[in-house]
């Protein structure tokens, strides 16, 4: 729409003469662009963390009461509240937290792992979650591209193959994970009953494993994510139509017609759409990982979040949520940046 309108405008304003957007120092344009994006991201970060902080602070059920049980005197309770920083008002508490958070200090856990710095808890946990999310997304995108290339443009007969895939793929990812875990356990048990070899270290599922022990549970988690929630079919449909539209597009035909290689054009033009799909899907996949990693007992943020919320551990919950929000915001920034780098039209639009 916009492009058409712009082309018409430029045609009327200057026909033979070079047409360029209003002169601005490119560096300044870039700086302005980056600053506006960062400011926007930061304001979203502050806003959403405040919402989560408020929700948690106004939650019914007081951890101080739970800790001291029936033996706590009012003074003891007041002292403990002060130690936990729960004596401050909502706004005061948040401002204090936020100002420290800006310097990289996310506070310390008060009830779940008392005294542990939140950054050291939530950081590694979130890396696990993010890692699984990214791996499963990459995996799905790679397979989706492969299948799209293999199948070519949509054909009616393919519905017979894709229909059942679509149906199974619509299953919630954690249901897939439960089934997968059961299946693998049964298989290994069967194999053990037959041969009696040493089972892999991650057996039985779920057993507690860390990345240094074995990557198997991580792979399984990523696999369940890819196989569930319609992730694969959605990606496949989107990427396939993107790929087909592009490979049938006029300029690709023009490139072909002049005898040059199509590949660099295809790759370059697929970067932004692929990354957009990746970014759009990331929050959903992160949500799915929260549950799935629970099934494979990984030290991820799902576990941390649930336990911390149970213990009303305000700093930990807000810290973990912060990472989730940050991931999405940063991913969007990256997307914008890549768009701007790859696609000259972006910066010209002058965000």
């Amino acid at each position, binding site marked *: 729409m916009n*492009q058409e309108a*712009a*082309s018409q405008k*430029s*045609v*009327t304003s*200057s*026909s*033979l*003469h*070079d*047409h*360029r*957007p209003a002169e601005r120092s490119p560096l300044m344009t870039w700086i302005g662009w980056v600053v506006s994006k960062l400011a926007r991201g930061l304001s979203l970060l502050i806003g959403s963390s405040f919402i989560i902080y408020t929700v948690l602070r106004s939650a019914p059920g007081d951890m101080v009461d739970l800790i001291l049980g029936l033996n706590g005197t009012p003074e003891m309770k007041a002292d403990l509240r002060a130690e936990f920083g729960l004596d401050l008002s909502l706004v005061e508490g948040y401002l204090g937290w936020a100002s420290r958070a800006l310097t990289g200090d996310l506070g310390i856990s008060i009830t779940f792992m008392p005294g542990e710095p939140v950054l050291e808890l939530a950081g590694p946990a979130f890396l696990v979650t993010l890692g699984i999310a990214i791996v499963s997304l990459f995996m799905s995108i790679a397979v989706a591209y492969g299948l799209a290339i293999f199948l*070519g*443009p949509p*054909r009616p007969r393919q519905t017979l193959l894709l229909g059942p895939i679509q149906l199974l793929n619509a299953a919630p990812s954690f249901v897939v994970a439960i089934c997968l875990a059961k299946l693998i356990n049964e298989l290994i048990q069967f194999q053990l009953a037959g041969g009696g070899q040493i089972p892999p270290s991650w057996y039985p599922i779920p057993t507690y494993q860390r990345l240094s022990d074995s990557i198997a549970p991580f792979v399984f988690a990523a696999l369940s994510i890819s196989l569930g929630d319609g992730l694969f079919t959605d990606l496949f449909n989107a990427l396939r139509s993107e790929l087909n539209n592009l490979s*049938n*597009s*006029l*300029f690709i*035909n*023009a*490139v*072909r*017609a*002049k*005898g*040059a*290689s199509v590949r660099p*054009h295809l790759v*370059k*033009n697929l970067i932004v759409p692929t990354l957009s799909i990746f970014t759009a899907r990331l929050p959903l996949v992160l949500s799915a990982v929260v549950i799935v990693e629970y099934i494979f007992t990984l030290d991820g943020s799902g576990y941390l979040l649930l336990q911390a919320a149970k213990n009303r551990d305000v700093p930990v919950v807000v810290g973990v949520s912060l990472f989730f929000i940050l991931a999405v915001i940063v991913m969007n920034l990256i997307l914008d940046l890549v768009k701007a780098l*790859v*696609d*000259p*039209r972006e910066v*010209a639009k002058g965000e």
Partner: protein
Amino acid sequence: MSDHTTSVVDVRDLVIEFDTPRGRSRVVDEVSFSVSPGEVLGILGESGSGKTMSTQALLGLIDGYPGVMGGQIDLTFQGERHSLLSELPHFLFEKRGQLEKQERGWRKHRFKAMASLWGRGATAIFQNPRRSLDPLMTVGQQVLESITAREAHKPDDTKLNKEAQSIEALEWLERVKMVNPKRVFGSYPHELSGGMCQRAMIAVALACKPSVLIADEPTTGLDATVRAQVVHLLQDLIRDERCAMLYITHDIREMLYLADRVIVMRHGKVLERVSTEDLKDRSSERHPYTRTLLEAAGMIGGDNE
């Protein structure tokens, strides 16, 4: 009719079909035409007459199923004759009384067959110049790409080096009458006007040094003044390059200006083949449809006048 042996392009009995929800429909029905070296053949017709499809078949760029289903296309360049559809019957088979095509195999074969012909044998410029240029690459790079692709086929000792290629690309931009070729070289398509894009596209196409250039309504969507410039430019460059051209349009005036011969198409069939001179001649007998076209363009008055 020109002699088959000397023609650059020779199309015989071309059939193109597509599957639609309402069944199979024939878009191009046994169309034949040929183009001699240096000649400009105009194809005239309304939209949907199959004129674009016939020329796309020449480039092997038809998408959709089943596409080309019969006929012969011969392309001659550098004295060698390439028969594009000779293998086609091997990919056809019958199923439930209908002729079907092994799509995957055919595509593979077609791309393989076309790989050496694209660019040097035939190339094209399209209707929408803005969309025919890769939006993510500078115009200069795209012209350069044509030259590089062309040079890749030459023996190593005669190849132009990188620098010479860039210089040539810049020259091409000058030849298509860009006001500031250096600046255009580093510009992206979205920074240029429609007319400039089309001129850039002409540069891209002709930089391949093709035997035949297919110009598919290159002026549609451009301003009237810009149109004239593009048409003049094309005429000049074609003459300089001694390149044959298939010029597709529904604008009869452009046709008369550019073409040596004209074929008129409607509903996938060739209605009439005339030389431009004949067409200009108001008195000669015309097919009723051609007559309507001429009338609509105000070239001849109605019978009742």
